């Protein structure tokens, strides 16, 4: 197995693990952390292709992904804090005021 194949599979594994965590865990903080893991899988793929093609554009996109991930984590955690103040729980099954 060549190093680049290993790195692409690493990115895919991180993405799939993040997806698994976002689907089966009930704590909203773990879901947010799994989303960060997914974004890291994408970053690894971008940087691997940037290394393969000799172009820094992949690293530039990874930079933007890190920036957007920071913004999204901050806003998501603020929403989580507001919901926690209301319901005293972070379980996504119990934050269901909008349900029919």
């Amino acid at each position, binding site marked *: 197995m060549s190093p680049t*194949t290993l790195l692409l599979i690493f990115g895919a594994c991180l993405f799939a693990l993040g997806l698994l965590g976002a689907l089966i865990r009930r704590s909203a903080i773990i879901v947010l952390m799994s989303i960060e893991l997914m974004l890291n899988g994408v970053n690894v793929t971008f940087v691997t292709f940037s290394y393969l093609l000799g172009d820094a554009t992949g690293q530039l996109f990874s930079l933007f992904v890190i920036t957007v991930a920071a913004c999204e984590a901050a806003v998501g955690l603020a929403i989580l804090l507001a919901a926690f103040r209301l319901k005293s729980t972070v379980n996504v099954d119990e934050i269901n005021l909008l349900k029919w």
Partner: protein
Amino acid sequence: MALFPLLIMTGIGTLSGLFMILQRSPLRSALFLVLSLLSVAMVFIALGAEFLGMLQIILYAGAIMVLIIFVILLTTIDEAKRVYVLHRQTPLGILLAVGLLAEFVFLCKSAGGRTPAAGIPPSSLATEQLGQLLFTRYLLPFEIASILLLVSLVATIVLAKKEPPA
């Protein structure tokens, strides 16, 4: 690039990611996520993207994870009730994630195996090239990213503020 060090880095990253989603305590999950982020930074530095690797450590493992740990400490009320309930959606979730991973691995095996192009610049020039791209060709996304940061800063403060007592 030697395969064995890469194997160690990717192994650490994948295993800590796996442990992250299976822990009962969210604080331990956060620590495993920090380990996974640091292994990704190691991979970045091994690939010659040193600026991005340092940014990964400073921003992701440094700032975002500290924020997440703060929120974990603020929202954990009962330490004894860290129950990990096997949800009824768990088998479907595992099926979906494993299916997606199988698809990705098939793609990687058919697209990987390439070696880097013959004329790639050495890694010491990657930062310079990144800076040049950022301020010439990708200037508009750069400016939009700064506006996004400003908007998310204001939004976080407004959303997380306590209601003043009436």
